[in-house]
């Protein structure tokens, strides 16, 4: 679904691979980033922090009120809000 600002549901990549928003990963699970939608400053910052297509990302946990999320990628911990994690599509 290119053009959408966020992946709300499961989608299919051109070569048949399933993808869904990062927010749908259960805590403790790991997947691979397939895309980051949007071209604004927030999406650019996500890319600059290393959330680029192909990278493995683990959802380590969430804050007590459910938001933001704690991620592990490229050997470090990153915190992003759910609204931002919605822009990140992962495989599976």
């Amino acid at each position, binding site marked *: 679904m290119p053009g959408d600002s966020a992946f709300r549901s499961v989608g299919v990549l051109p070569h048949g691979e399933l993808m869904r928003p990062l927010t749908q990963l259960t805590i403790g699970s790991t997947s691979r980033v397939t895309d980051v939608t949007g071209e604004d400053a927030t999406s650019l910052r996500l890319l600059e*922090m290393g959330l680029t297509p*192909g990278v493995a990302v683990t959802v380590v946990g969430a804050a007590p009120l459910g938001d933001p999320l704690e991620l592990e990628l490229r050997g470090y*911990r990153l915190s992003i809000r759910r609204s931002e994690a919605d822009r990140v599509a992962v495989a599976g």
Partner: protein
Amino acid sequence: MSSVEALEQSDQPAAPTGRNHLTVALLGNPNTGKSTLFSALAGIPTRIGNYPGVTVEEKVGRFSHRGCGIELIDLPGTYSLAAKSPDEQVVVDVLEGRMKGVARPDCVVVVADATNLARNLYLVSQAVAVGLPVVVALTLGDVAAARGITVDTASLSRELGCPIVSVVAPQRQGLGRLADMLLEAAEWQPPTLPERLAGCLAAADKARSAAAAEAIARYAWIDEVVAEVVTRQPDHRRSVSDRIDSLLTHRLWGTLVFVTTMLAIFSSIFWLAAPLMDLISAGIDTLAAGADALLPEGTLKSLVVDGVIAGVGGVVIFLPQIAILFLFVAILEGCGYLSRAAFLMDRLLVGVGLSGKSFIPLLSSFACAIPGIMAARTIENRRDRLLTILVAPLMSCSARLPVYLLLCGAFVPNVAVGVSWLRLPAVVLAAMYAIGVVVAAAVAFVLSRTVFRGPPQPFVMELPGWRWPQPAVVLERVREAAVSFLKNAGTLIVAVSIVVWALGSYPKLELPPAGAADAAVLKGEALRQSFLGRAGHFIEPVVRPLGWDWRLGCAAVASFPAREVVLGTLGVIYNLGDVDPGEEEGASLLIRQLRAATWDGSDRKVFTLPVALSIMVFFALCAQCASTLVVIGKETGSWLWPVVTFGYMTALAWLGAFVTYQTGTALGW
């Protein structure tokens, strides 16, 4: 100047150049040990201030190495040179020599964290293209080694085309070599873009925006390089850092630790600071008594004792709270907890337009808004920082407590509310604290959706690994906060105090009213005759709807510079002379006097329950603290914001007091 001895110990040949002066910029991601490296190299900064026109901190230090004076510019921590924030713009401007008043650096040191090389290489990949010689300082190698991570610095150096020096700044390892390298590097040509990086950038995805495609291309290069130079021992044991992290971000345990930590910080700015503040008060009193005894009776004495000494005392008194808060903030920042605290609290604050990072500044403001506003320096996002600063003075600070206690004790009936142990005065007291919080939330909500409306602010925040805070960095943070408060705000606060003294002392009482020999009555009359007193009379029509008489208006006006004087002012204005309302005897004397006070020319009591409540609400919401306004001006770098704060808080205070009094009267309280 510092570090000379330690640096001179390296037994390499003397400086290869004839230069006697170098300017070096220190660039790096946040949390990479950049501050530790700065302290280890340059010691105490020689200059701290703001870059012209922006509220981005400029920090410069000096040291000498092999006879060459080196000026070290500590750039704000940044993840990228694709400028999106004022901080990043400053970094780019300094590196490109476009910053006014800052000479273009001769070379750049890029600090890279060995435990987190991939993301750190992103900035390095941009730094090698700014057209300056680059030296990479690889930090935290000891932590990386403990986690089984090794970096092949020789290969990485070949790939980047610039030298890499491993440094462990706390142990001063590698500092001499780094300094040697700087002297050499300054003579070199800037590195050329690594061939493979150029290849990746050329192959960037044309379908995406240039910036996004470039970011993806840089990481493609990073992935190749990291695969070659970084080896991780296949060790599945969870690191200590991970285990601490999972405890401290745990829903239950993490929240418990958080609450305990925050209570500890909060109570220490309240209680730990108290003895120090008493000590300072006592010192100022002694000084005032000394001046009182030395100087002849008259205007000069009054100016020195009530104007200058009282003004200086009013500045110095804030130091213990500022120092203690910054000590805690620096320790939390150094060990990595500050980001975790923001992580835990973000959801609660994001709904009203703030962010998790606003929590500690706002909590601190319950003790005193000044250290709270200064602690907002830890919020990188400009909009969030400004919003936090604007609402911080609404938190009920410790100076409001005596007003609440006196009025609750004297005028709120001591009856049970529902259950026998819950008394009405306690409920009212809690309500005063709640009013500040609720109004702050409402103001932040409205401002974030009107004046500060804009694209959503990303909350993409690194949660750095756990490590021990560096004492040198912690102490430097405390020293810096104290010095900047004294230097920037202190002088202005003293000036304001002198102006207030003049307004309260002039014009002088011409002729004492006949028969008024009593000193207390004289003092009361003198205040009523002064500009400040006349202002109270003048604004009577404004305060009438709040249920106040002109004397209350007078006391409120007189406490605009500093609300803590209000009880003393009430004492003077109701002819009690200089009682100390802090003492039990003084308080009960004041309470009796207030209870007996009547409207001029009638026997109608001034202080009723609605009036007492309206006074408390007014004090809860009003910006009656010149020092806070001065600090807001200095921290935001603009006098617009203190004016805005003063305006909106005074308006809300009047409105709140009006609604309270009118409602209370209508309900027949």
